[in-house]
């Protein structure tokens, strides 16, 4: 397992650097743009959007709310205002179309931290051997919902690193740096893809939304696959690729249907044989 080759080197050679990083670049641009839109108000006084990922208001007219948080609010026994509910509905419909975990790979700032940890891990050949089930996140998701119901308080929000980091970036980070460093070190040294791929209940929730979503990655030209395994190595949820990539003999669909696929598009980037592309669920 001492494999320390350059993931995507073959793709860089055949497609060029830009083509083999285009979805990654687009994603980073998207994450940065969203953060910048929120920061434009407090820094430049241009208020296009107010609030944070928990709930926000675009130009004083279009509300957006995190459906996961609103569900917790419901469970505490409080009925939110119509603006909050409408915002959650809008967000819900959006992720039903583009897949829930697009939140993780295109919006969430923690993704940048854990992707960097994973990249560095590979570069330095660090083995983070603590293994636990990828299903753990569903238990944590259940736990956060039960806690909201049992205590009548949004307990998870006291420690949720996802909201701490984004709210910190927009409203002032303070000791939130510690959370970022902790997440980075955890993913780098303790567990490979530990937070986003195994534990995060926010990702688990959005993954559940993605079970029926429209936009999917498709292994359209899987017959061209040369088994280089670059897609597996770069994928944050490698278990989602196998059925679509190797399903030709069993007549299984080439669509990656597993809801935990984040639609990050890195498999499309690193494949020198152009096996993958974005497509629709069929």
């Amino acid at each position, binding site marked *: 397992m001492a494999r320390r080759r350059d993931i995507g080197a073959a793709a860089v050679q055949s497609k060029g650097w830009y083509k083999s990083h285009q979805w990654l670049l687009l994603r980073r641009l998207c994450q940065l743009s969203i953060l910048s839109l929120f920061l434009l108000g407090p820094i430049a006084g241009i208020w296009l959007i107010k609030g944070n990922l928990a709930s926000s*208001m675009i130009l004083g007219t279009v509300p957006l709310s995190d459906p996961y948080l609103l569900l917790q609010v419901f469970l505490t026994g409080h009925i*939110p*205002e119509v603006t909050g509910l409408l915002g959650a509905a809008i967000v819900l419909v959006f992720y039903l179309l583009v897949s829930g975990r697009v939140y993780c790979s295109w919006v969430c700032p923690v993704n940048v931290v854990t992707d960097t940890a994973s990249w560095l891990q590979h570069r330095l050949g660090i083995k983070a051997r603590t293994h636990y089930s990828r299903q753990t996140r569903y238990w944590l998701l259940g736990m956060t919902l039960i806690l*909201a119901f049992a205590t009548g*308080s949004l*307990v998870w*929000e006291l*420690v949720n690193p996802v909201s*701490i980091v984004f709210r*910190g970036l927009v409203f002032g980070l303070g000791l939130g740096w510690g959370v970022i460093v902790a997440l980075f070190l955890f993913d780098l040294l303790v567990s490979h893809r530990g937070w986003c791929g195994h534990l995060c209940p926010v990702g688990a929730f959005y993954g559940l939304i993605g079970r029926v979503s429209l936009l999917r990655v498709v292994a359209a030209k899987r017959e061209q696959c040369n088994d280089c395994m670059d897609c597996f190595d770069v994928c944050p949820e490698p278990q989602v690729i196998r059925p679509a990539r190797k399903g030709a003999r069993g007549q299984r669909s080439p669509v990656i249907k597993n809801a935990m696929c984040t639609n990050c598009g890195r498999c499309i980037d690193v494949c020198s044989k152009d096996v993958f592309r974005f497509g629709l669920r069929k």
Partner: protein
Amino acid sequence: MAINKSITRRNFLSNVLGSACGAALLGAGLSVYSRQTASMPALKIRPPGALDEEAFLGACVRCGQCVRDCPYDILHLAGLGEPVPLGSPYFVAREQPCRMCVDIPCVKACPTGALDHSLENIDDARMGLAVVVDEENCLACRGMRCEVCFYICPLLGEAITIDLLPKTGSGKLPRFIPVVHSDTCTGCGMCEGACVLQKSAIKVFPRYLALGQEAEKYRYDDKGEKVMDEGEADDTPFSSNPLETINRGRGSL
């Protein structure tokens, strides 16, 4: 074959139980932690219209839209390590009191109703209650005609009035005691912000801390047992408790 099966089942079970127990332990820890962090420090005040603290912590999603829409920038979201539940909004009256905007933009901005949208008149807000905590240092109480808190109060002459105590002898000053009225004070904190002392002699506290409460009226027999409530007591002209008879007599004087 049978062995293989039992091993996979064991693996499966230990995996599932492991995650489940981990989640349960974390949940138990978190619920204890949340109880410890649930109480607000006395001088941190919620925005107008905030639900009771317990309900507020279940309804507020910590989005900060109230903070953004406050035209005076008085509100903060609690950061990590602050003794306020993480991410929830508050202000400190001594630094920046609430200016009691007529249109209450902070409440309108709240998407969940953690700031109650039924608050339509800012004078009905009950963010806290001002208390003259230090009569020894209060200049007006010492007879020095300060009364800044009285004049700065947005509900002038209603929430704070001045009780005049005439001078009690030569060399003594008349005293002007600021008195806060709980039925009108909104807890905006203008008085606390304006107090001219280095440390304010009038402070806004949460109402549950600031207010006393009358005991339910009851009486005891000679064995210390509760015998009648107030309604029953009205049926008998005389009380078995001589103290009560005396008090009743004094009241009619």
